[in-house]
């Protein structure tokens, strides 16, 4: 017990042997799937392998980039992460429209980069500003949450337009503008996208110790310092989600409606 406390201010290095021991825990999932005939064995193995390889590659890339004192590779990595986040957001959406990928990538890009830039340049202020050990994890957290908000919002917007088609059109037939016809669906979608982060904020520190704080504590940071970082990242993420969702829904709205106050139903289709 005392030994644990004594080590509290330093990172405990993990050997590959220890990681291997942790990997055997996946057998719990595999055995449950096998005994209950869940049919998930292949997916469990595939997910475990993907996760391991992806994170290992990320580690290698970060190792290289951290060693360089140059902004360009950091920005290139950040750009690649952003495009992948936009792409992943669309992959989670059941209903789509033409050119939804550029829409989602644009929304993720603008919202995440703007909010991360404010955080890095005005709040955290690392020297130099492009310090990858600050920029990359921050952007990663913002992107992960922003893409979830954007996919939830866009999916709700497009599927609700379809399911509430009669009601939306009824408004148009009575003289509604396209905004008046879609407003309720738009608002419901924005709420759907924003509620998860508000829920997370409400229970932060009660139900679980949030990710960034966990990382900082494991890395040996004093708890109050870890708390400050966690509070900051929560506000940053909430702002990025709000901005990203508005940008994504705005684009979706303009894409599926026309200047003649029509809904172009041929634009909306189920993902194949």
């Amino acid at each position, binding site marked *: 017990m005392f030994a644990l406390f004594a080590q509290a201010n330093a990172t405990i290095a993990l050997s590959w042997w220890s990681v291997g021991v942790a990997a055997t825990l996946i057998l719990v999932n595999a055995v449950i799937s096998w005994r209950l005939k869940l049919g998930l064995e292949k997916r469990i193995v595939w997910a475990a392998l993907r996760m391991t390889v992806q994170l290992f590659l990320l580690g290698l890339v970060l190792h290289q980039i951290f060693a360089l004192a140059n902004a360009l590779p950091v920005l290139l990595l950040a750009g690649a992460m952003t495009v992948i986040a936009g792409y992943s957001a669309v992959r989670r959406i059941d209903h789509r429209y033409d050119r939804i990928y550029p829409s989602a990538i644009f929304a993720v890009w603008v919202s995440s980069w703007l909010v991360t830039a404010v955080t890095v340049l005005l709040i955290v202020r690392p020297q130099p500003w492009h310090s990858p050990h600050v920029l990359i994890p921050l952007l990663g957290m913002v992107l992960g949450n922003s893409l979830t908000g954007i996919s939830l919002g866009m999916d709700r917007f497009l599927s609700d337009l379809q399911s509430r088609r009669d009601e939306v059109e*009824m408004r148009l037939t009575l003289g509604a503008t396209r905004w008046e016809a879609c407003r309720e669906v738009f608002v419901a979608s924005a709420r759907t996208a924003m509620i998860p982060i508000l829920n997370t904020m409400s229970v932060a520190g009660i139900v679980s110790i949030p990710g960034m704080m966990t990382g900082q504590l494991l890395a040996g940071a004093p708890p109050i310092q870890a708390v400050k970082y966690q509070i900051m990242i929560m506000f940053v993420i909430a702002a990025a989600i709000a901005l990203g969702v508005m940008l994504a829904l705005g684009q979706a709205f303009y894409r599926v409606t026309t200047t003649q106050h029509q809904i172009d139903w041929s634009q909306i289709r189920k993902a194949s």
Partner: protein
Amino acid sequence: MPDRLIEICELTRLIPGTDQALLDQLNLTVQSGDRIGLAGASGSGKTTLMRAIAALDPVSSGKLVFQGDPVCDMPQYRRRVIYLHQRPAMMAGTVRQNLQLPFTLTACKTTFDESRLTDWFEGLGKPASILDQDVATLSGGEQQIVALLRAIQLDPAVLLLDEPTASLDAEAVQQFEQLVGHWMAGATERAFVWTSHDSAQLERVTGRRVIIANGKVSQPSVTT
């Protein structure tokens, strides 16, 4: 000489992503006093044409003229030329809230007149308390009557009635026809286009027949 309310010139609508025409350089004139029965086989494009008159779908080419001027303010136009769906679309809430809905829109410059609606309901043998009823508790026929009242309280020039009584019982059909007749008699500058699979109904309520086939209409401008 009756006034021309709506002129559709060379209207073409293609199936999105194809060269196949749903409406093919179609011309149609709706004049004041017109009671048009739009007929055609299933899938011939009756609903597509009705929706085109209401400008509800993007078209490939063509011109839409209302009372002599090309239509540019679509919400204002749709307030004057109202399309009624076969299935009445209601928003969740009371009958009153549904009837008040058009007056919450920026295109509507008039105010909600409850006494006028109460008179209409009483004329149909329904108590004024129906206004406070949840629309979800109404029958399909009653909902369609509410949808019609929601439209005609705006004093439109043209009603586009797309199989409006297809799933209604005989009493609701009679009430619906009575209301449309009452609305038509209210002013001279009015007309309607009505589609129905019930040829007896078309005989009963309409004055002239327009037939649609292969994306074109025949007898587009003959009035009776």
